[in-house]
């Protein structure tokens, strides 16, 4: 057991020695991996932030119905209560609406600048849960036909669209990640192949003198693993640097809307997963190369 551990430690040390002996090549390889990984990781960060924004708003099937001035509230309310598709109904007076607006993020200044209340009375309805976009749209069309109704808005529509967009984004990101992961395996494959070729003599002599296949292969596995690890760490660095550059601008923009929003870095788990994944890709590249070029 101790002998086995020592062999692994030695193999790791030999791999580290090789990496140190070829500092420039090591750095370049790690950079290739780091840059390639930072692309999907950066996309993931943007998407995660976008979803965070979208989830703050309700995805509930909600409609807002704005009334014309002087509309008959009581009559409308009883008609709405009769509709089976309406699960919940809430009346929002124009005074109430202004108060809500004043409390909403970033709009206090705008409201304060108003001379008189421009808002109409409104009903906020929630359709029965599980209503799809078509049902909501049909409901909206019927509501628009009611007397005294100025405008009907399907509130959840934009959130649904954003959700759909995020889904496409996630799919595109997965495709990009898969593509770049393949690229990384290929890069490691080739680096390890070159390492094997430059160490032909050592490998041959070792085998002639009684080294097992496992002994000969082990340092190359570590080489791939360490290279992937370095690339993963570098990708985190690139990502962190990118956010550090972007965030002052994002903060400035958000402040203009009275928000304190800024792009958040990867969570600890996600960052760890990125590094582990990168190391794993390096190991796979090494495995393929070793099984192809070490017989």
């Amino acid at each position, binding site marked *: 057991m101790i*002998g*086995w551990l*020592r*062999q692994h430690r*030695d193999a790791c040390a030999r791999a580290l020695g090789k990496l140190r002996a070829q500092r420039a090549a090591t750095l370049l390889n790690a950079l290739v991996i780091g840059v390639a990984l930072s692309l999907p990781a950066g996309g993931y960060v943007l998407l995660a932030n976008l979803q965070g924004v979208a989830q703050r708003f309700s995805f509930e099937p909600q409609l807002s119905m704005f009334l014309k001035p002087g509309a008959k509230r009581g009559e409308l309310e009883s008609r709405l209560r009769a509709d089976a598709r309406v699960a919940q109904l809430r009346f929002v007076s124009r005074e109430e609406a202004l108060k809500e607006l004043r409390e909403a993020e970033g709009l206090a200044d705008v409201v304060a600048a108003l001379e008189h209340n421009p808002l109409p009375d409104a009903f906020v309805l929630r359709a029965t849960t599980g209503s799809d976009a078509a049902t909501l749209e049909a409901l909206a069309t019927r509501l628009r036909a009611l007397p005294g109704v100025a405008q009907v808005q399907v509130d959840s529509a934009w959130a649904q669209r954003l959700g759909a967009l995020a889904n496409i984004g996630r799919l595109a990101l997965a495709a990009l990640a898969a593509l770049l992961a393949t690229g990384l395996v290929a890069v490691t494959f080739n680096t390890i192949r070159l390492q094997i070729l430059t160490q032909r*003599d*050592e490998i*041959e*002599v*070792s*085998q*002639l*003198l*009684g*080294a*097992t*296949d496992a*002994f000969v292969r082990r340092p190359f596995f570590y080489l791939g693993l360490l290279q992937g690890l370095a690339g993963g760490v570098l990708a985190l660095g690139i990502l962190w640097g990118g956010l550090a550059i972007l965030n002052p601008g994002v903060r400035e923009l958000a402040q203009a809307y009275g928000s304190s929003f800024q792009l958040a870095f990867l969570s600890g788990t996600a960052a760890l997963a990125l590094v582990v994944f990168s190391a794993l890709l390096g190991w796979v590249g090494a495995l393929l190369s070793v099984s192809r070029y070490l017989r």
Partner: protein
Amino acid sequence: MISFSAVSKRYPGGQDALRGVSFALESGEFAFLTGHSGAGKSTLLKLIPAIERPTSGSVVVNGQNIGALRRSAVPYLRRNLGLVFQDQKLLFDRSVYDNVMLPLSFSGQRPREAARRARAALDKVGLLARERANPVQLSGGEQQRLAIARAVVNRPALLVADEPTANLDAESAAHIIDIFVSFHQVGVTLLIATHDQALIERYGKRVLRLAEGKLAA
């Protein structure tokens, strides 16, 4: 220790390197293997560490049948053999000391014990003072002694050397053979291929003579 019975070796392409070779080398023996170049000396020596496998017949080394040996068992066979190759196969990207350390790194030796063994092996061939040098800086005779030190660092009971005195002047060659004789005196079995007739006659040991792949009496 080594036993060949009716061993033939045919390389792909149909060339017969060995034809019906039979002999046995007892533990503690010292034998020269001789013959013209192309007579099959190198092929015979390559069968012992399973670098080549016999086409027919059986080769038994340390009780193991080379023809039937699994690939995974080959490294453990080789660790118990001392091998000196015709082209030495030294590594020029590391010091004399690290060349001798190489075989010790396979077996997971404790570092202190490994270092002690490496220095002892270098001392036996008179290269202890050159341990920091690169093999390139060594003379031909010194390089050969380094190859021997690396071969014996695992303290094998059997030492096989292929033309260890080729390209050496008479004095260096004699020095090499003296080293072998000193190993023989402590019980190591030796099989040494050479075409140097004068050397063979001087030492008066057992001689295996190959001619066109056959063993002459």
